[in-house]
């Protein structure tokens, strides 16, 4: 039976009746076949016999012309999908990366810009690695250097904020670099892909000049929020409006369907920075969240560590039992940065005893940085500074909007 391939025509004896079906796949030792009605059913492999291959109709040739009068944008794909195609014959969903396929799937894009496309990886975003961040940073650098007016990076939503933050540090860019994903897969009629994509294109052609994430602002299809890459966090597992700017307002909004882009007063504008790339990353860094009673032995698994971000409790605390272990780490040349598992608010280790102990042994207060952003920043800072003292200084300094020197009032 191993000679059967997905898409083959088979004869399937179901309810004692022989019928033609299309073989799809094997699942839990059943053969999954698609019946004429379109329904899939799982049957024992003994029930089916291969008839032969089926002719696969070639996809219709799609002719898409791009409007040369529009600004050029690049779409770089990392695995997050903004367009896909379903093969209803086999149920297979394939992501679409070519400009013409994307424009066919989302025609409205064609009215906003003309597009170059580039696929640098095709992985689930939880499998993203610092090495791919670097590869992506270089690719974005090349595209901007080639003169595009903005870059759109499609990315799985799980770790989109980590990657976007990494690019924020590695790259200074005169043009917007917009990360976009979808919380509902692109093959569904209800997917948020289309609106997120056109909104990200609107932002990529806007006066913005920094790295941002553009995703649904509400559960309704009425607007997208523009989040600064260093202040955004995925705050819901599944909702369309999962992404939130933490500790400051979002950079702005895109109304849908008008695509009117509204930017806040604090955004970095297009052209404010020259293009540059410093893509070093120290990968020997980790993020550890403290919990009460947690043994400092967890730090032992992190041997050879150059940087450690702690998500402490409250204002940035760990139990006193952790102090000696952390002291050893610092003494061994590891830079330790304290953030808070509260996510909102600023670390302040001057107020309580354990905090002062942490300061005494050289732990760095991570101000109001998100723990995940502090991790990414630490990787970058350690690879791009000459001394640990300079690294410590940079960790407390606002480089890319990751630290707000003032905590605004919010009700």
């Amino acid at each position, binding site marked *: 039976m191993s000679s059967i391939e997905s898409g083959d025509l088979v004869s399937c004896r179901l*309810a004692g009746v022989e019928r033609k079906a299309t073989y799809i796949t094997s699942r839990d030792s*059943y053969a999954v076949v698609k019946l004429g009605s*379109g*329904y899939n059913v799982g049957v024992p492999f003994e029930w089916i016999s291969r008839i032969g291959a089926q002719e696969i109709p070639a996809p219709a040739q799609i002719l898409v012309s791009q409007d040369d009068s529009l600004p050029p944008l690049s779409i770089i794909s990392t695995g997050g999908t903004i367009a896909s195609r379903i093969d*209803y014959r086999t149920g297979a969903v394939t992501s679409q990366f070519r400009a013409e396929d994307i424009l066919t799937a989302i025609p409205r894009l064609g009215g906003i810009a003309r597009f170059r496309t580039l696929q640098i990886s095709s992985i689930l975003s939880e499998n993203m690695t610092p090495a791919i961040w670097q590869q992506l940073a270089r690719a974005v650098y090349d595209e901007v250097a080639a003169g595009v007016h903005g870059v759109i990076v499609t990315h799985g939503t799980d770790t989109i904020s980590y990657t976007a933050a990494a690019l924020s540090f590695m790259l200074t860019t005169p043009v917007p670099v917009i990360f976009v994903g979808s919380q509902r897969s692109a093959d*569904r009629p209800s997917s948020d892909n289309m609106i997120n994509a056109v909104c990200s294109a609107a932002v990529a052609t806007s006066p913005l000049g920094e790295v941002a994430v553009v995703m649904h602002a509400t559960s309704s299809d009425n607007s997208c929020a523009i989040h600064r890459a260093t202040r955004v966090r995925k705050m819901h597992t599944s909702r369309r409006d999962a992404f939130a700017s933490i500790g400051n307002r979002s950079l702005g909004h895109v109304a849908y369907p008008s695509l009117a882009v509204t930017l806040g007063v604090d955004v970095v504008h297009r052209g404010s920075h020259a293009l540059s790339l410093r893509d070093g990353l120290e990968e020997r860094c980790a993020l550890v969240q403290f919990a009460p009673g947690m043994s400092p032995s967890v730090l032992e698994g992190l041997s050879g560590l150059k940087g450690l971000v702690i998500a402490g409790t409250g204002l940035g605390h760990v139990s006193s039992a952790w102090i000696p272990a952390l002291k050893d780490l610092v003494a061994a040349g590891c830079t330790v940065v304290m953030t808070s598992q509260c996510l909102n608010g600023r670390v302040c280790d001057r107020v309580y005893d354990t905090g002062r102990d942490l300061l005494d042994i050289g732990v760095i207060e991570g101000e109001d940085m998100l723990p995940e952003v502090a991790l990414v920043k630490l990787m970058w800072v350690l690879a791009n500074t000459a001394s640990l003292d300079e690294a410590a200084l940079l960790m407390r300094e606002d480089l890319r909007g990751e630290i707000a020197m003032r905590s605004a009032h919010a009700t």
Partner: protein
Amino acid sequence: MLPDDIGLLAGIEIHQQIDSRRKLFCNCPTAMRVTSEHTGEFSRYLRATVSEMGEIDEAAREEMRDERLFTYYSYDTTCLVEEDDEPPTTLNEEALGICLQIAKTCLMTPVPQVHVMRKLVIDGSNTSGFQRTALVATDGTLPGGGLIETICLEEEAAQRVSDAIFSLDRLGIPLVEITTSPCMHSPREVRDVAEYLGMVLRSTGRVKRGLGTIRQDVNISISGGARVEIKGVQELDLIEEMVEREVTRQRTLLEIREELHRRDAKICEDAIDVSTLFAGTSSGILKNASCVLAVLLPGFGGMVGREIQPGRRLGSEISDYAKKCGVGGIFHTDELPAYGVTPDEVAALKEAAKAREDDCVIIIAADRQRAACAARQVTRRARYALLGVPEETRKMLEGGSTAYMRPLPGAARMYPETDILPVSISDARWESTVVPPLLTERAKVFTERYGLDEGLARQVAFSDRLPLFEEAVAAGIRPALAARTLLATLRELSRDNVPVDRIQDSSLIGALLAVEQGQAAKEALPDILSALAGGEEISTALGRLAPQVATADLDDIVARIVGERKAFVRERGMAALGPLMGIVMKEVRGSVDGQVVSKALKDAISRELSV
């Protein structure tokens, strides 16, 4: 009656809501809500996705003609799954079990492994843009030998509140879909099969009752006609009429085709702008429109106005198509002058369109874009008239006629629902699936064993209160008393606005037991039940409305009452029984059965007379 040789082929699909504790793919209750109670609201667009052929399903394309924004109402009884903002749970095992019971009753064979599919539906009724559906069993048999092709377990769609607003309470309620082959050949047969399958479904005791919980779709074709699917037939009584009318429609359309061919009828594709002709018209519709277009249909004269079903003409069919472009409708020269259009204007119109005697001119009044769209739809439908009967999905109108709804879906656009694990149906599970006794069988048992007459037995068996009836009988209550109380008494009380739904089953059985054990007269039941519906405790109600009267006490009461009225008894003899009954019954206040009182009184009167 229809002639035998028309070659009628009909099949049905029955959609029945399952009465499970939770929805098919989430943990929300299967409760319907009043829309004014909605606690949330959101809006979404739906888009047909590009298929492997770069094509979009024809029905989907029609639905998405304008990208439409749908608004949804959510409730404290709905969750993020209905909102398409959380992955579905695993398949509801309770619902699958009920589905398997139905399948087994229908002599079907389950599929070894059930896979949930996504079926594209982008009319807004599913927030996801697809309906989740799974094929559970195949190849069953109808009593007459017809084939039941499949039984599927699906999620119910959201209910339309108005045009583009949907309510999420209904979305996700489990639904079984039973599809027969086109094995029926007469309207009566269609109705019988629908009725039979409905009975099978209700035999499980686990399906929803009430308006909208069961819907039939009927597929109909005749020789030379075409397959037409008629959606949403909710009343069994109309099925026959509807099938007959559809046969008439198809036959008349075929006759029209013959006549058109005879006349060598054609379609002029290009619409003519006749706006200026109607600049001074007294027809409000034409006057208010910014554009009036005319389509000439050479050889269609008289045919467009011909009735094809009660209240429906070929013109109605053409109008249905045109309306998809957002116009209010059309006028055609077969019906003009009328509607404020004068004979002179008709003459001018015909002249402008260069129409001959047996031509028809159709006019459309709207803004230019809509009118042009509608004109294309008019020619499209007219072209079908030359071919005969178009394949269509139609909806039933009041009375049994039908109207065009959308093209027949092509090969269903289905692909796997990857968020839901497949479920294997083991042999052991199938073998242990209990086939519920059919309601018809139960009715027979009630007649044979309990002596209920056939009508009452059937009423009981098909009633919502069947489980309660069976419980009551098991508790030792006479079936006749139970049946009468549950069907007649409660219905009467309900008519008098007593909230009988509030009576707890246990209280109701308690009241019946009190009657059965002679603690209460059955005459007191309406009062007792009313008290229970009003929230009174069973013991309080019985104590107040049926105080204990021992047999000895009854004899005393009867003796006293007869004793006080000796003269009357002597005068009337046994005819005094009636008047005295009332007096005694009033005294015992419902606590003694009338028959018992009657016997005691008869004895007492006899004794008095015999003195």
